[in-house]
């Protein structure tokens, strides 16, 4: 990574030009409301179903996009996730498993199917400027830095184990909480914290090697 680009990410915030960026859509719907929506959707209420879709589509799409890379594949799979979700909705009981965790389980299985059928491995997500949700006043130069840094860290994710990669994708693309990530991966919360710590450590090491010209 060029020093100038790297330098841009060394600020005290996560995104150059943007200080703290609250996650979009996270906790947009309180759990109790969401449970009501799910029950209404199960009963055939189309408005409730539409609301569930609206609340979670972007999250599902992002999660799949970073897993499969290609935009078209991600769009098709995200659509399929919601159709399968609807199939399984009647069997869904809350029982401590948040709806979004349930949804990500559907997505994870679908992506596994996708890879098994294609016999392919995950590709690095490539982003265009228009793929990134930007505040209106964001400097285009910062966007370039964002994209470069993101591409680099996505490339470095091949150094992670499958489980570590899954945890990172669930935490940052799907924006799940630690508890939700634990639910999807079948691990406990301490496991998830440890996996996150190890994954970030590995990514740091890999990026340092890239900087040193020894990828």
């Amino acid at each position, binding site marked *: 990574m060029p020093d100038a680009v790297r330098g841009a990410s060394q600020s005290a915030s996560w995104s150059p030009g943007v200080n703290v960026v609250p996650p979009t859509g996270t906790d947009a719907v309180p759990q109790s409301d969401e449970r009501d929506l799910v029950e209404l959707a199960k009963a055939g209420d189309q408005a409730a179903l539409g609301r569930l879709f609206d609340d979670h589509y972007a999250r599902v799409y992002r999660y799949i996009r970073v897993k499969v890379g290609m935009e078209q594949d991600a769009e098709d799979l995200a659509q399929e996730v919601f159709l399968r979700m609807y199939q399984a909705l009647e*069997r869904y009981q809350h029982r401590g498993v948040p709806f979004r965790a349930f949804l990500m389980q559907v997505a994870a299985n679908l992506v596994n199917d996708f890879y098994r059928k294609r016999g392919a491995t995950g590709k690095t997500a490539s982003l265009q400027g228009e793929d990134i949700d930007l505040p209106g006043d964001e400097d285009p130069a910062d966007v370039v830095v964002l994209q470069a840094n993101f591409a680099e860290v996505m490339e470095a994710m091949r150094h992670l184990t499958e489980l570590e990669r899954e945890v990172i994708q669930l935490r940052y693309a799907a924006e799940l909480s630690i508890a939700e990530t634990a639910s999807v991966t079948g691990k406990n919360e301490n496991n998830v914290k440890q996996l996150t710590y190890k994954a970030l450590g590995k990514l740091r090491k890999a990026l340092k090697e890239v900087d040193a010209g020894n990828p």
Partner: protein
Amino acid sequence: MLGIHRHNREQALADALAASLDAVRDGAASIEQCLAQHPQFAAELEPLLLIAGQIAVAGRIRPSETAREHARFALLQAAAVKNRPIPIAPRAVVRRRSWLALAPAAVAALLFAAIAVPVLGSVDTNAVPGNWNYSFKRATERVRLALATDSTDRRLLRLEFAERRLNEIERLSSQGHVEHHASQVTSLLKDYTADLNQVTNTTQAQGQIPPAIQQQIEALTPRADAVIQPIVQNAADDKQEVKNAAQNAAVVTRQAQTVAQTLPSTSTPARAVVPVAAQAAPSSASAPATASPHPSTPAPTETVGETATPTPATVTTTPAPTTTGTATPPAQQPAATVVTASPTPTPTAATAQAAATRDVAILTPVTPTPAATATARAATATVGTNDSSGPTPTAATDRTVTASPVAASTARPAATQTPSTATATPARSVSPSPLATRPASVEAGLVVVGRSPDEVRYQWTGPADTLVNIVAPLGTSVVYATYQTGSQPATIWYPGTPSPVISTNQLITVKLKTLGTPGAGLSVTP
């Protein structure tokens, strides 16, 4: 001891990292503040938080609006198909001995042997209306339909008969201009529409489509376009009835095509993107897919566990193209929607002048004639049935029209969100389906209030509890329509379901898509 200490430290560091990540992500603290809160780990935390910042861009990836809209439509359509009404008159209601159940078919067979067989040899399938043997041809069709007990066989027969009607129209056309045979062509178009509509409704109700039917519909579609479109385009202005019949036939053709393309095949359940209906529709309980839910879909309480180990799955993940995939917003102005409002108590016939003065694309309604009403009732009566209502439209009408309010009230699940529900207007529920009804009348209360490239918005200022028929002419197709009052949640209407009942001042938004050549067949003048 050292190992335990190291383990504890790692866990503490992981905890501090997790807390810091959440705090930064939620905007509760800056990186500096997090480091200050955990000074003993600051040196290790800082680079990890910066790396996390690079990854956090993933949370800003934005899906395209088009893809979102397609996915949303696919989901809601799947739900709409699933929630279709159960058959109005299920066979199980009347319990008869099995041999008694076959009695009508046996009688028909005897009649067939005694009367029809001797003349079968003389029945020419090329006969057209006006030929001496045409009535035999149609009688033979009815007998064949009566003898077919399997739903798939009956639908295949109807498709065969629909194609025959097209052939007959073509032959009549070759014998002279369509205008010379306008009444006969109109009648054939209506028969074609009724047969195809029956196939579409039955298939939709079952939620799955047998491959043979799928293939036959796909073969029929281009043939129908070749026969029907010239009629729509070339029919003289004073032959509005034949033009309307052709428009309805074209719409029903598109409906059938959509069903063939979107419903899961009974032989390949994984093909579908709308497989939900097959699993949940009550009438599809015997369908194979019902017994084999997708194994790759997790149970709500199960955990993925080791995601590195793929779970066995039999479901293809190929995202099949759906109707949503073709729902590209049309490039041209969607000036072609026919939205007719018919206050059912006393339909008011508006004048052509009224149509000309409003900015409504096509409002070419006609006053319902007895014949049209009969056709419409027959079509309504068959919505949601399992095609067991009998071979002749008149029989279906007589038997089931009283059940229509039930069908209408159960066929629109979202209607409960609307002030004007079907249950509030049971008498009006005996209504023609949008596809079976010729545009009826121009209503003064229907006003266009907005347009965009792929939708038209209308405001209804007429009386409450009004049925609205929404029909798109050639060149466009209605994807769905919404109607709502003020800020209340919108209710969605899909083509093929009973007409929406609207109230005064409700806003109707009709979503359109272009079929084939944009603008082809539009007979609209703004």
